[in-house]
C-alpha cells in the first residue's frame, strides 16, 4: 500500500529528460543513477567538481583522488571533466544544472524545504544542499510521507530550520506525487502510489492540496 525505495526512485527517474545535466543527492536519489532509461543521455554532476560521473570502481581500482560528493569512490567516463568547487557551484548557482533530485526531512505547501538540521541534535552542516535548491531551476524532493511516529512530513509550514524557501517543484513520497508552485500558487496531487486511496492520503497529510489525478 505504498511505494518502496526503488519505486520512489523509479518515479523520480521519470523526471529525467534526454540531454539533461542532473545532480543527485544522497540516499534514494542516488538510486536514480541506475534507472536512466535506455537510449537517454543524462550527465551526472558531482558538486565537489565533476561532470560525467561514472559507476563505482571495480574492487581494487579505487582512486582516492576520485570521489563523489558523498565521499564514495567513483569512476570517470569518456566525457568527464573536472573543475574547482567555485566553478562547480557557479554551474549550480547559475542555473546550468537542469534538475536536482534530493532527500528531505520536511516540505511545505509553499515549496519550502528542510533537510539539514534538527535543533538540539548535532549539526553536521548543509554541505551543498542550500546551493542546489537555490540554483537549480527544477528541484524534486524524494522522502517518506510520514515520520516514524506517523506525523505528516508534508506540512502547511516547515517547523525545522529551512534549507531553502520556495524551492521545491515536485514532491515524491512513498504515498503520492505532488506538484508545488514555488511562487505560492498551491499544490496539486498528481499521482497516488499503488493501492493508496485519496482518503488514506488526506488522513496523513497536513499540507493542503487540490486533486489533479
Amino acid at each position: 500500500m505504498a511505494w518502496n525505495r526503488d519505486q520512489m526512485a523509479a518515479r523520480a527517474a521519470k523526471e529525467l529528460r534526454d540531454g539533461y545535466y542532473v545532480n543527485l543527492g544522497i540516499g534514494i536519489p542516488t538510486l536514480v543513477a541506475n534507472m536512466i532509461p535506455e537510449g537517454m543521455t543524462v550527465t551526472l554532476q558531482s558538486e565537489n567538481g565533476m561532470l560525467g560521473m561514472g559507476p563505482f570502481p571495480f574492487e581494487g581500482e579505487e582512486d582516492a583522488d576520485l570521489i563523489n560528493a558523498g565521499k564514495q569512490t567513483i569512476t570517470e567516463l569518456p566525457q568527464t571533466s573536472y573543475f574547482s568547487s567555485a566553478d562547480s557551484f557557479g554551474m549550480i548557482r547559475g542555473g546550468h544544472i537542469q534538475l536536482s533530485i534530493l532527500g528531505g526531512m520536511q516540505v511545505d505547501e509553499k515549496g519550502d524545504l528542510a533537510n539539514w538540521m534538527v535543533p538540539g541534535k548535532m549539526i553536521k552542516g548543509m554541505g551543498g544542499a542550500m546551493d542546489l535548491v537555490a540554483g537549480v531551476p527544477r528541484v524534486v524532493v524524494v522522502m517518506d510521507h510520514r515520520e516514524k511516529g506517523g506525523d505528516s512530513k508534508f506540512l502547511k509550514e516547515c517547523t525545522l530550520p529551512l534549507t531553502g524557501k520556495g524551492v521545491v517543484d515536485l514532491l515524491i513520497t512513498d504515498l503520492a506525487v505532488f506538484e508545488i508552485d514555488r511562487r505560492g500558487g498551491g499544490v496539486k496531487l498528481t499521482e497516488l502510489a499503488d493501492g493508496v486511496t485519496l482518503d488514506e492520503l488526506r488522513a496523513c497529510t497536513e499540507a493542503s492540496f487540490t486533486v489533479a489525478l
Partner: protein
Amino acid sequence: MSRKIYPDAASALAGITFDGMTVMSGGFGLSGIPENLIVALRDSGAKNLTVIGNNVGCDHHGMWLVLANNQIKKVLASYVGENKILESRYMSGEIEIEFNPQGTLAERIRAGGAGIPAFYTRTGYGTRVAEGKETRQFPNPDGTLDWYVMETGLVADISLVKAWKADTEGNLVYRKTARNFNPMIATAGRITIAEVEEIVQPGELDPNQIHTPGIFVQRLIKGPSYVKHIERLTTRPRPAAQENN
C-alpha cells in the same frame, strides 16, 4: 625561482605561524588535503586558530589532528560530520562553527582572492544562513524579482593547498576531484604554501593547462609520502566473466 622550494613541511611553515591566525586548507573530505602541511601546522603549536575549509578532517585524519591538539578556536565549513571531537567541542561551546553553504564558502574564498569584498547570492535566502545579513532584491531577465543575501569575501594569513604536480616556479596542476577547494584557497592566502607529489622543471607542464599560476604560491614542498585515506571505499564486484577491463 627555486627559492620557493622548501626542504620539508616544517621548514615551509617556520617563522610564519602565530597564535590567532586564520588558516585555509584545501580538500573535500580527505581528498586533496595538504596532509603533510597539516601535520606541520599541528607541530607548530600555533593556537586559537580560525580554520577555513569545506571540512575539518575526520577522526584521526587531516585537520582533525590540529583540532585534537586543541589549536582551533573557530571553524568556517560546510560540513563537519565524521568528526567526533569537533561535535563534542561544538556542543559544549568550546569551538565556534560558522556553517556556510558549500557554494557560498567556495565563492567567498574566490572573492577574497580576487579582491571582491562582497557579492550577492540566492543561496540561503530565507534560512538561518541569512540571519543578520543584508538581503535585497535583484531583477531576473524576465523582470520578476528574486531575493538575495550579501556574503563577504574571505582571506587567510596562511593558505595550505595540495596539488598533484608543480614546477619550480610554483605553477600547480591538480588531479581529478582532488582539485576541489584548492585553487581558490591558493588565491586567498597572504602566504600560500603548496605541497605536491612531484616537482618538475619549468616547461614540463603545459602552459595552457596550469590550474594555479605560480604567482599565488609563495612556498612549495614535495610531500615525502601520501596516505590518501579513503573515507568511503565503495566498489562494485568485477563481473566473473571479465578478465580484461
